[in-house]
């Protein structure tokens, strides 16, 4: 607590405008958490657009495998000779699309943006625990993005062994062109990225634990903060394992070690590596990889909890259950990684164990879903753009979550593993759902970030086209998977039984193109509104959380005077007896005597006595 008060006096003494801000320190090497959040967001959006365009490219190949598009050659050169994407480049597209989306968009873009923006603002802190580390976190992230994109400008092309880069395919340069310099760059990029996310994560955790304002105990934190906190913990515990795995892979690739390699023969050339196991990589990778999908979805769930509560004008149903289910997911996510490896040939006993832990994770997920539904029940739902996306998230989370029950079952996974069923599953549950959480967050906190409002009507258009098209893209893909069509296939032309899916592929591709075009509405809305949007009011959504008590115009240190004190939980919406349908966290109970409930006082007898006295005095007056 002493550090906080010191921090406060510092700001009171020196005031603002004392230290000059140059363009460079304000916009580029900024240490202000709000600016860093914007940097993360805009970089994330740019990477998302790139990854989306990559996906359109490979969708075109899948839909029209025999057709030539000379324009592709104009843009891609030798990778699309004769206007047709080459198989190697197809795999590169799939790989880089996955990598960018999972790590750069849905981890850094989502968690990075909203952790940076919301943690200090919602817990009542001047800034992050370590603003400098925070800045470094962004710059490592940006460097990682640049290195990854740089791999497109190499002779042999970017990494193309799939985003999970299983060795030996990724470890032996002659296994595929993408495993040459492209894979080296992928690994460098990933080490930088993990460094970035660790710096971010440590910062988030220490800020949340040490710098909450007066009165903000853990059970008064908004669910966004809970989700971001647990996400950061998950990241800190799991990302280092990926680095360990990556370093070993670098050793195998460049220094002749055999951690992952053994008994390899390419053509007739026998490689000298002996004693390693490719399965080791899979264990290390998925030890991160599975928590990673929760790193992706949990912030989205936190954001949607907040948004659904604000816009249903109702407290989130089962706040404690929501937190406990997040904790349950956090813990369980560490012991389910093996469900990615049911058919690797690992001991079947392990398969059984991982099946049990995996299916248990459906319980907290179900609790969250039901709580969302209960929050909507008898609400007074305002369909702000953010709310639409939050409801979309719930829908995707259900649809994708349910198919997870098939894949988590080891015996069903035998036939579904690595097919389009998996593609459909995770694109719904962690792809679309997390992206919708991110978009919901952007629409909701845009006024806080830029002091202006986005155009709601364009946002409606954006939501409906995206929502419908996402289902049109991913729902039919389940059936391809059930028919046994494996993923990462360059063309469906070589197998008789896949021919019947060609028309479906055309349909899916067109839906994807329409969905991509709908993002233009978002991009235009976003960038236009930064400069020309309507000026935002102080509290545009009538929300309770602390961030809406800060001035619309940003200032370093967030609050001009003292940091407000928190008296209540963040979900007092439509409380009976209250004047308005929301009571901000900063309003003490003494000002809301007419709406206080017995459990508000958490057993504080003195407060209960005062409340009873007041009620005794006021009751006859009302009647």
């Amino acid at each position, binding site marked *: 607590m002493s550090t906080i008060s010191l921090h406060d006096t510092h700001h009171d003494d020196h005031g603002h405008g004392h230290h000059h801000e140059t363009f460079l320190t304000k916009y580029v090497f900024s240490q202000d958490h709000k600016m860093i959040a914007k940097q993360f967001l805009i970089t994330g959006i740019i990477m998302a657009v790139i990854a989306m365009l990559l996906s359109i490219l490979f969708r075109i190949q899948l839909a029209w495998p025999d057709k030539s598009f000379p324009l592709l050659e104009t843009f891609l050169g030798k990778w699309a000779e004769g206007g047709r994407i080459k198989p190697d480049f197809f795999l590169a597209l799939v790989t880089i699309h996955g990598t960018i989306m999972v790590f750069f968009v849905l981890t850094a873009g989502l968690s990075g943006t909203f952790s940076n923006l919301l943690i200090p603002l919602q817990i009542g802190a001047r800034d992050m625990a370590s603003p400098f580390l925070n800045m470094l976190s962004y710059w490592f992230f940006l460097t990682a993005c640049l290195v990854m994109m740089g791999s497109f400008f190499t002779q042999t092309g970017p990494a193309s062994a799939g985003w999970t880069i299983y060795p030996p395919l990724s470890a032996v340069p002659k*296994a595929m062109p993408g495993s040459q310099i492209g894979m080296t760059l992928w690994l460098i990029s990933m080490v930088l990225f993990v460094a970035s996310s660790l710096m971010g994560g440590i910062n988030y955790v220490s800020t949340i634990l040490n710098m909450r304002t007066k009165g903000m105990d853990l059970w008064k934190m908004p669910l966004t903060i809970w989700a971001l906190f647990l996400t950061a913990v998950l990241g800190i515990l799991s990302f280092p394992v990926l680095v360990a795995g990556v370093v070993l892979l670098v050793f195998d690739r460049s220094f002749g070690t055999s951690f992952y390699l053994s008994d390899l023969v390419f053509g007739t050339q026998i490689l000298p590596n002996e004693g390693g196991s490719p399965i080791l990589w899979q264990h290390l990778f998925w030890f991160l990889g599975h928590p990673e999908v929760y790193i992706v979805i949990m912030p989205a769930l936190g954001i949607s909890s907040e948004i659904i509560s604000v816009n249903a004008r109702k407290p989130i*149903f089962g706040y404690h259950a929501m937190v406990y289910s997040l904790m349950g997911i956090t813990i369980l996510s560490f012991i389910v990684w093996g469900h990615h490896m049911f058919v690797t040939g690992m001991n079947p006993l392990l398969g059984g164990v991982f099946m049990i832990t995996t299916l248990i994770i459906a319980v907290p997920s179900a609790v969250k879903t039901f709580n969302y539904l209960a929050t909507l029940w008898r609400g007074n*739902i305002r369909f702000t753009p953010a709310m639409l996306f939050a409801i979309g998230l719930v829908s995707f989370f259900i649809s994708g979550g*349910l198919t997870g029950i*098939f894949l988590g079952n080891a015996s069903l996974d035998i036939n579904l593993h*690595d097919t389009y069923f998996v593609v459909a599953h995770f694109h719904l549950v962690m792809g679309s759902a997390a992206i919708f959480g991110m978009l919901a967050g952007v629409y909701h906190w845009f006024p806080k970030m830029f002091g202006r409002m986005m155009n709601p009507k364009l946002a409606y258009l954006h939501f409906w086209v995206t929502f419908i098209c996402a289902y049109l893209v991913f729902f*039919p893909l389940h059936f391809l998977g059930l028919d046994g069509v494996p*993923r990462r296939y360059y063309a469906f032309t070589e197998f008789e039984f896949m021919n019947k899916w060609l028309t479906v592929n055309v349909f899916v591709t067109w839906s994807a193109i329409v969905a991509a075009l709908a993002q233009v509405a978002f991009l235009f809305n976003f960038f236009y509104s930064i400069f020309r949007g309507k000026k935002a009011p102080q509290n545009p959504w009538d929300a309770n959380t602390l961030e809406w008590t800060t001035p619309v115009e940003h200032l370093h240190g967030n609050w001009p005077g003292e940091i407000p004190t928190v008296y209540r939980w963040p979900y007092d919406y*439509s409380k009976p007896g209250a004047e308005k349908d929301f009571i901000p966290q900063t309003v003490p109970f003494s000002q809301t005597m007419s709406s206080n409930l017995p459990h508000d006082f958490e057993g504080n007898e003195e407060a209960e006595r005062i409340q009873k006295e007041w009620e005794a005095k006021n009751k006859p007056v009302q009647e």
Partner: protein
Amino acid sequence: MSLRKLIVNKTMAALTVLFTVFSSANAFAQEAAAAATAKPVDMGPVHQNALFYVLLFLLLCLFIAIVGKALKVYELTRETQGKPEGINWNTVNAVIFALFLVVGLYGVYWEYTVHGTMISHMHEAASEHGQRIDEMFKLTLIITTIVFILTHIVLFAFAYFYRASDKRKAYYYPHNNTIEKIWTIVPALVLTLLVLKGFLTWRSIFYKVEDPKNRAINIEVTSSQFLWEIRYPGTDAIVGKKNYKLITAINSLGIDFKDKNSLDDLMAEEIVIPVNKPVRFILTSKDVIHSFYMPHFRVQLNTVPGMTSYFEFTPTITTEEMKTKLNDPKFNYILLCAKICGANHFNMQKNVRVVSEKEYQEWLTKQTPYLTNDLRKAFNLPVPVEAAAPAATEAPADTTATAAKVALDVKNQLALKK
């Protein structure tokens, strides 16, 4: 108001200008196309085509902009006239959610019936354990479909019925421990059922008790970029040892012919298995990880270099029976690669035939053994007289390493001959 209208007009004018600029760019493109006819691919029409679509999209944007402006004008007029907000967007979105629910439910029904029936092999699994997997699948499908439909009905119905209204206030209802307990315990119970059944199915697939009267046929499959090599055990029913260090151009599997069990091993171009007899696939890989995937039998297991894995199952329907069942004379069982393995991952296939025991035995007699004369020489084994060897007479091969070297020599000689 007139100012507003002026702005609207200005935006429209600007967009029209943009439009004309693009149209003239189109004209320029045509000229450029005419100039560049010498190129192998005439890019003119291509660019024209691309530009056409870009224009089409811009036109769409223009249309959306006009609609947006019109809406704004409408709302502003209402505002200036002091009337309430013209369009209640809460109601609009709520109605679309309701529509989405109805259309979506029909869409799901359509998907289940149309795409669902397009799944050829889903009618019936062609193996014993596959039928158990299908049972498991059906149970899961029924449960998840019910939950899927119900939760979506609830979600979108709530969105529709509880849309914002000034007359109503939301119901303050922060928690209810009983309800929460119920919807923790019920999913937990349902999942316990699924886990138990899944666990039993899984065990029955991978924990096989060997029946001495009905021993499984061993078949070895070796994957490499991008082909499957099949080895049958021959008369001794045992697939001989192999060692990757012995791999040469003529011994692509690295079979160790010092092991007597290897001598009668047979090479096969396709996988042929007898119906109703257990087969045990011995799976290995030479270079990268592949995945041995036969969807009709519900069989998949990765082939991992440096590790041998096994999948045992019993096919129950012959290819011919399946052809009549599916009424598809072109039907064939298939082996695919399901793990990304390189450029030709999408075309790494092998034909699989399930035949009667008799046909199987007949087919076996036609297969050639792996052991060729060249290999005999390389391994210092007696060579049948009719095939005299020109090379490799001085091979005192004793250790595996020299054997490999000799084999390489042989390969070089063969190359020279060519």
